[in-house]
């Protein structure tokens, strides 16, 4: 949006400039203008070539992925082709019927963990951000600085301690250590607070208090609806992060029917993929990647807008 709006002032100035200067030495300026125009067109062509190349580079792997999940193992091993095959349903069935790969189960597990994580992250980050935004309590600035500080520390460095802690309290091979930490997500808190600071009028809360609403019901009835756009964006981001998470789940989860999709992929790949039905493997990766991409393409305007949401409103 902004990139579309920006060109106007500059181009208007350019036109004005050309009009002003055209009077004294018309021919010379004309030639110069034509020269710059040609240079601009050449530049434009170059830019488009690079952009198209990058677009192909980004799309090509996914194209191969989708093509190969519609072809049989034999066809794939014969070599690559750009055309779709007609083994989609065959690959689909053979993947879901394979008793060694609990695919349907893994999908459900991943979905469950990602949904729980995203809901917890969004709800409790909003709550925390609202506390920092609304209330003037002692140590507020110190605590918020603390949140900023821990934002940069990767959770992976504490994973060893968390793992042994889980072993101690019998939480290994359960989803608790994967889901509950989502309550404390400093990055989301920071984002939510930025958003609240820029859009939330203090008078609203005052008015609700006069009407006799309790503090928690103010949060649920007034603040959460205001936060909806920011919550949607953060919901998507934390869902995706959890869906894709590999490092910690790989350490926590042991039993086969509790595995998430990244773990299934890792397990599959540890055995030699060349002995496998490649159509099935491509189908597995398609299921891991494509639904999310599809969701992204549907919501991309919303997502990219949402990333810069705070600055637009502020």
């Amino acid at each position: 949006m902004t990139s579309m709006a920006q060109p106007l002032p500059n181009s208007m100035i350019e036109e004005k400039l050309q009009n002003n200067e055209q009077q004294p030495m018309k021919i010379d300026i004309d030639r110069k203008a034509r020269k710059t125009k040609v240079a601009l067109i050449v530049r434009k062509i170059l830019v488009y070539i690079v952009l198209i190349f990058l677009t192909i580079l980004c799309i090509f792997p996914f194209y191969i992925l989708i093509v190969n999940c519609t072809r049989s193992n034999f066809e794939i091993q014969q070599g690559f082709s750009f055309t779709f095959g007609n083994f989609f349903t065959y690959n689909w069935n053979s993947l879901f019927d394979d008793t060694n790969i609990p695919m349907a189960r893994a999908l459900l597990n991943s979905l469950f963990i990602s949904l729980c994580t995203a809901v917890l992250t969004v709800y409790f980050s909003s709550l925390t951000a609202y506390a920092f935004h609304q209330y003037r309590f002692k140590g507020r600035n110190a605590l918020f600085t603390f949140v900023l500080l821990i934002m940069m520390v990767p959770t992976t460095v504490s994973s060893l301690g968390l793992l042994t802690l889980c072993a101690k309290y019998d939480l290994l091979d359960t989803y608790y250590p994967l889901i509950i930490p989502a309550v404390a997500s400093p990055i989301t808190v920071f984002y939510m607070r930025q958003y609240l600071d820029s859009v939330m009028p203090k008078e609203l809360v005052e008015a609700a208090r006069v009407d006799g609403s309790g503090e928690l019901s103010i949060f649920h009835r007034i603040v959460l609806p205001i936060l909806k756009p920011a919550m949607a964006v953060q919901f998507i981001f934390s869902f995706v992060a959890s869906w894709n998470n590999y490092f910690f789940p790989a350490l926590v989860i042991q039993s086969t029917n509790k595995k998430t999709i990244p773990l299934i992929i890792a397990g599959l790949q540890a055995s030699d993929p060349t002995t496998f039905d490649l159509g099935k493997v491509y189908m597995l990766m398609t299921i891991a990647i494509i639904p999310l991409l599809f969701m992204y393409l549907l919501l991309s305007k919303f997502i990219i807008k949402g990333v810069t949401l705070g600055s637009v409103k502020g």
Partner: protein
Amino acid sequence: MDKRMKINTRKKKMSYAKWGYILLIPFFVVFIIFQFIPLMQTFGYSFYEYYSIGLTEIGPNFVGFSNYVKIFQGSILKYAGNTVILWILCIIPQMTISLLLAVWFTDARLRLRGTGFFKTVIYMPNLVMAAAFGMLFQMLFASNGPIVDMMMKWGWIQESFNIGQSVWGTRAVIALMNFLMWFGNTTILLMAGVMGIDSSVYEAATIDGSGPFKTFFHITMPLLMPIFIYVVITSLIGGVQLFDVAQIFTKGSGAVDGSSKTLMMYLYKLIGTSRNYGEAGAVSVVLFVLTAFLSFLVFAFTHRNENKLSRKQRKLVAEYKLKGGKQDD
């Protein structure tokens, strides 16, 4: 001083202050249980001999710094070197392309069409499951995979090859995957930085007859420098944690003689496979110190350059601290 006065004048509203603490309870309780205590425990383990062989557990016995001595005499420096090499291989093309795209997308004279489409496409790989992406590339580049097949068909190479057996081939593919996953993100970040530059500066430059190259090197780059460096450092923080892609692509082996094994892969092996909690603790501490130092650089840097940034840019840096922090998958 000022703040204290403000609080005093608001004393009547202070009755609500306790709600601030109440609403913060879930966050801090979970943080302390699931991050702080584990972190301290990790630090603690680094000073203990604590590992298992089979089912027998040895330790924990206090051994002082001997875990650190062991990992530094071992291969941690090599893996750190690998991590840095992979990061450099990725960051150079990433920053170059992202800068170019950011400048082009915001260039008033180019007036590109379909920027929305291009932005959507280049950001897309960022959302892909890194594990699946790693496996996809492993299959694409397999000796009987589509890439080799196509190159043979087009006569670029005579016989099939296995990229997993080449040190620099493996590194290059891992860097390529990382590049694909992150350059869109970096572009949007830098673009926001460029748009934050006061447009009157560009108008003045156009009036003075400055061409695209001159404008870039004398105006865009100097004014973008703070954000540029910020992006590089946050990307380094992400780069230190490189794991999924490399782990899956090399099947956890780190390819030829561990030449593509990263610090995180080393940590994963120490925790998961060898169950050497003492040394794993020491590696975690090294990772912590490294990221803390880099984060400190970011903060110090953005703070020092605060007055060099325009108001708009400052806001954007704050915005995008989120995106930078996300670079850990």
